[in-house]
């Protein structure tokens, strides 16, 4: 996802959040499940009763009862990478994406303990697999952003560091 802007500075894409626009419709949640758990099927075909399905994003409710959607920040200095004991969680400096390597993962959940945004979790089915946003690798745009009808989730190009 590295690209050059007009000023010729290298940038990366980030999913940004404007919580004032969120209506709590859960489109982002279902779109995420549809892409990752339901092999890209339409969100209306997601089995809402299947507890084994996991969304990589969350919607939290603030003090005033307002919803805030939250997606992995793919941090510049990611806590999940710094705390990983096995080298499974890595930061791709080129794309800015924080990747999780399931084969290397020891399911110790240091990353869950350390993510201040609370977006990492063990999967619902086995309780052993880390559920982690991959920015919908290979797609032109992450499903959560594409499906957000209000613009609460949007893509911003930021300078690569």
């Amino acid at each position: 996802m590295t690209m050059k802007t007009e000023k010729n500075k290298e940038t990366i894409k980030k999913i940004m959040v404007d919580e004032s626009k969120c209506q709590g419709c859960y489109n982002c949640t279902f779109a995420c499940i549809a892409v990752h758990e339901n092999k890209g099927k339409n969100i209306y075909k997601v089995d809402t009763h299947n507890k084994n399905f996991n969304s990589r994003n969350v919607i939290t409710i603030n003090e005033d009862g307002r919803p805030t959607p939250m997606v992995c920040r793919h941090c510049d200095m990611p806590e999940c990478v710094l705390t990983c004991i096995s080298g499974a969680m890595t930061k791709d400096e080129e794309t800015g994406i924080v990747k999780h390597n399931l084969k290397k993962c020891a399911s110790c959940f240091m990353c869950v303990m350390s993510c201040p945004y609370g977006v990492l979790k063990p999967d619902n089915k086995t309780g052993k697999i880390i559920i982690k946003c991959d920015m919908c690798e290979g797609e032109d745009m992450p499903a959560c952003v594409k499906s957000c009808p209000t613009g609460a989730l949007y893509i911003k190009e930021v300078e690569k560091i």
Partner: protein
Amino acid sequence: MKYLILGASAAGLNAAKTLRKLDESAIITVVSQNTMIYSKSLLHLFITGERNLHALSFVEPDFFEQNDINWVNGVSAVGVNTYRKEVNLSNNLIETYDKLLIATGSTSLFPPNLDYIQDAKNVYSLENLTDAILIRDKISKSKSITFIGGGLVCLDIVSKLLYRGFHINIIEYGNNIMSFQLNQEAAEPYQKAVIDDGASLYTNAIVVSAGMIGDEITSLTLNNGEKINTDMVIVSSGISPNSDFLEGSDIRRDCGLVEIKGQKLRKGVLVNKKCETNIPDIYAAGDVCAEKLPLWPIAVKQGIVAAYNMALKDKEMRSVYGLKNPISYFGINTISIGDPNVSGPNIETIDYRDDLHGVYKHALVENGKYIRSIILQGEIQGAGIFERLIEDEMDISGVNKYLFDFTFDDFFELDDRGQIIYSNKNAI
């Protein structure tokens, strides 16, 4: 610039990688006693046969080539001449440096009250790969295994050895297993699993004497008079920083014993928030440092912080708070942050239980303002915000919300890159 790093684990290798990122033309040398790169936190998986040696590494196999780092292995430092900026090595060679990082880690420190069994041939503690290899080998020849200390090291191994025909004894000094991390209620499901699977658990128990045949222990007698027969003993130990080679140098150390949460720790090299020692151009990071618990993430961060400062860039440790552990055995996931046994007149307990789904949450809050301890069991997502609140002692009284529903945006704003704005931007 010539950087010399002593030690090739969490702190040393993260420092080396960071230095390469910050200084393309630097000459970077890593000296380590280890001839293999491995994560100390994965050793139990080697003992129980779930991972082979190569799967214990936490970096890519071509790490040193990729980052253009010179690795001198199988060699340890035996002395530092801070005036001439030289390190004497065990192979009688000398390495010079412009900037030096001490990241030599720690070895196990046997609990003083068990001194009398320390020299028995079938008594082990787990601190490095050599220990792991010895333990794995001995387990393969044993029928009964006894753990002194029912902490995380014990459970890491026991949770995988049950069902395999061993008789396992756990001797725990506290009221419950993992007593540094869990209260009785949170420990209960784990204890049940251990006992249901055939292990013998002795709580509030102390070993008072040992029976020996030759140089091997054959039985242990407890304070209640009970005698336990065993083929081998694994002791949860404290740690001792590997800083003896600094003896005689002017690098400040604290060599006394400190007790943190019942664990005896020998203090190590004294550093500030930037991982600087008292001597210019010398830094220290990881388990070799004094005044902290040995925890992988702290070592990683200290390695990175040291590297930034070695390369003359600002970076500091936000905290070296080490009372935090994720726990995952028998399909039960728990995260514990803070001291679950903290007590006092102004401590309020907040509990949440959903027995149907195996969810138990427990918080201890002081004066309605500061969370001192939290246990999240069965539902661990969102624990990270509590790590921040506890570590940074943030006042929660201004947020009018159920504590277990706290999220980061109740306390933090996001910047233009969509990340939390911390008061100290240079801290990690």
